[in-house]
């Protein structure tokens, strides 16, 4: 496992020259890099919109933007972060790392891989263009509830629908590709239960994507027909029902939140053992816990809609089913903690992000349990408590998982060790900024501050100012991350094939930076 295997040069050829390399490439590393750069660009754009939101909320009253534009900001921030930043970042990581982890020469369907990436600029070009249209961008929240989005939405809603269609097709193709790669391209001896956790969590995530992205495509298609073709799926006047929209949307929406977190679980399950210099505690239980979370995610959607008036038995079912998810999640947190227990820990940037992930994601999980309690949810619903909850699971969950992965594998991608001092600065600034931004939201939420409103009661002023300062700090720090990555691409201390002494896996058997073609001859896995 430790020897560098890929060194036969008889048919080796490098990347094509010029710009067309990136347009026509079918190489998983090129496509992975493009996914990662695209998602980072979307992360900065979505973050800029969040800065507009926080600047407006810096003080009570209306200062900077009018309420209609504020609504466009909250909507576009959510849509861009969910579909443009987090999901493509994980697909990019999968493109880069899954073939290297399982000993495959490339993805199973390289041409489709190219197409699924290039759909994304089209999708988000379409979505972002709505900001410049007459009537403005979508302003109904990223959940686009009918009839707000159908009867009362702006003209640009149609562009939004097609953007979601394109992004959905891209995700589905990416998921098919990952499943085909993992099931059919593993090196001899790499049985399913020997696979690294990141490959496992992505396999399960890909099945979730295939199951729910078509439902999302269905619900936006229904919206399209209601708006333009006179159907009444969600219009009560024609015999439809707006509540139906929420059921169909959240049937997609709840598995979607696990799509955004499961790959991070996988990455953290590889990083923590590497920096604890111990094998992962409870590998098998990790695999089954991931499967259980994915399975349960289909049976909890109505906990997003306790207050629409579902029957008591329904509320009880969805409440208990939601709480049940805490069990496999608890198994995972226990395994991470036990992996670290009595290990030889060191605290490089990937490990710092991974530990912060475990602690802060657990806090987000606990506020999720509070929200799952149906009678209590009547108080929390549509307040900043919900905003605090899902930002605690998405920012230190998904985003910190991505940062941890980026630092962990950056030496493999660039061939140089990144600047550890700057990376630790990035971590601490992000950690402090993120907690300053989102922790006070718990308090203002419990005190009744509603979400998606540009103005608020005077009594929330101090906490909101703290939130805004934290958000500006978190946002500005991400430019440091951009600098660290560019610096690591341009040079630095050359990275050995395996820069982390505790790391395990096939990706560390190839040189750093990884050659353009790897594992043309399958490695031997014992």
């Amino acid at each position: 496992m430790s020897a560098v295997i890929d060194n036969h040069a008889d048919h080796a050829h490098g990347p094509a020259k010029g710009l067309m390399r990136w347009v026509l490439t079918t190489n998983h590393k090129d496509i992975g890099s493009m996914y990662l750069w695209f998602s980072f660009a979307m992360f900065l754009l979505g973050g800029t919109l969040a800065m507009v939101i926080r600047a407006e909320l810096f003080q009570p009253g209306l200062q900077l933007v009018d309420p209609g534009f504020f609504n466009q900001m909250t909507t576009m921030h959510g849509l861009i972060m969910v579909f443009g930043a987090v999901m493509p970042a994980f697909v990019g990581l999968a493109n880069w790392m899954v073939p290297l982890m399982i000993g495959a020469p490339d993805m199973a369907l390289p041409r489709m891989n190219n197409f699924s990436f290039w759909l994304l600029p089209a999708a988000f070009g379409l979505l972002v263009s709505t900001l410049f249209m007459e009537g403005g961008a979508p302003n109904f929240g990223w959940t686009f509830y009918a009839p707000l989005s159908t009867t009362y939405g702006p003209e640009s809603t149609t562009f939004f629908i097609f953007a979601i269609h394109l992004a959905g097709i891209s995700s589905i193709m990416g998921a098919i590709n990952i499943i085909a790669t993992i099931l059919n391209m593993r090196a001899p001896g790499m049985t399913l239960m020997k696979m690294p956790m990141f490959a496992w969590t992505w396999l399960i995530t890909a099945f979730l994507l295939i199951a729910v992205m078509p439902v999302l495509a269905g619900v936006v298609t229904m919206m399209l027909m209601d708006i333009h073709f006179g159907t009444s799926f969600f219009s009560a006047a024609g015999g439809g029902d707006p509540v139906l929209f929420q059921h169909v949307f959240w049937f997609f929406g709840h598995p979607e939140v696990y799509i955004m977190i499961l790959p991070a679980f996988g990455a953290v399950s590889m990083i923590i053992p590497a920096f604890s210099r111990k094998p992962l505690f409870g590998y098998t239980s990790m695999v089954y816990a991931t499967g259980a979370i994915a399975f349960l995610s289909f049976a909890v959607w109505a906990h997003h809609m306790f207050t629409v008036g579902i029957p008591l038995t329904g509320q009880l079912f969805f409440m208990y089913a939601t709480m049940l998810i805490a069990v496999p999640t608890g198994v995972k947190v226990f395994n991470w903690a036990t992996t670290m227990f009595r290990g030889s820990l060191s605290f490089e940037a990937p490990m710092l992000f991974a530990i912060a992930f475990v602690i802060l994601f657990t806090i987000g999980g606990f506020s999720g349990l509070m929200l799952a309690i149906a009678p209590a949810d009547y108080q929390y619903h549509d307040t900043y408590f919900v905003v605090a909850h899902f930002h605690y699971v998405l920012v230190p969950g998904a985003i910190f998982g991505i940062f941890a992965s980026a630092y962990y594998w950056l030496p493999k991608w660039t061939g140089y060790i990144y600047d550890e001092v700057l990376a630790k600065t990035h971590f601490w600034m992000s950690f402090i900024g993120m907690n300053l931004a989102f922790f006070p939201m718990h308090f203002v939420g419990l005190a009744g501050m509603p979400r998606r409103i540009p103005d608020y009661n005077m009594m929330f002023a101090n906490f909101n100012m703290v939130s805004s300062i934290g958000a500006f700090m978190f946002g500005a720090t991400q430019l440091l991350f951009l600098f660290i990555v560019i610096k690591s691409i341009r040079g630095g201390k050359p990275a050995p094939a395996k820069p982390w002494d505790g790391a395990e896996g096939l990706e560390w058997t190839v040189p750093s930076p990884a050659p353009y073609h790897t594992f043309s001859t399958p490695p031997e896995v014992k």
Partner: protein
Amino acid sequence: MSEQGLSTRSLVKRLMLLVGGMFAFGFLLVPIYDVMCQAFGINGKTAGAAWQGSGQTVDMAREIRVQFISSNAEGMQWSFGPQEGEIILHPGETRTVNFLAHNPTDQVMVAQAIPSVAPARAAAFFHKTECFCFTQQVLQPGESIEMPVRFIVDPAIPADVRRLTLAYTLFDVTERMAPSLGLAALHRN
């Protein structure tokens, strides 16, 4: 490993079938939702056609207060409301309440009323034998109409329900219905 499992081609085919199946399932959720609402009387939905049952024994021991609420959907200009705000009845007895509607505009308009019952679990026990909401109303400019709803509250209604509310929302469906009602010449701004 590929020699043991499916070939990539047939694996992708199966996954594409799954994608197609889930897309169809998304649309299948629409009738499933309607059937569930009908079967369990949830969401305050009442039956869309006249109730055919009969022979309810009147439970003189119980009294239920039935309130009537009306509202107009956005853009609907008719004046619309019940003649009585509320009545008190015994479960099992048949009662009739009239709603009044007036079209103050200078155009022919078509309206559809959508009922809803609160609390939602009472909806399954609220039987309408006649209702203006089963059909659409066409009113000439300035015309008024008296529209009856005849209903029975089932004696099997849960004992703790002492008050229920029947709410109607009136929607303007002129544009939607204009072609089929021969109002094609009509155009509204």
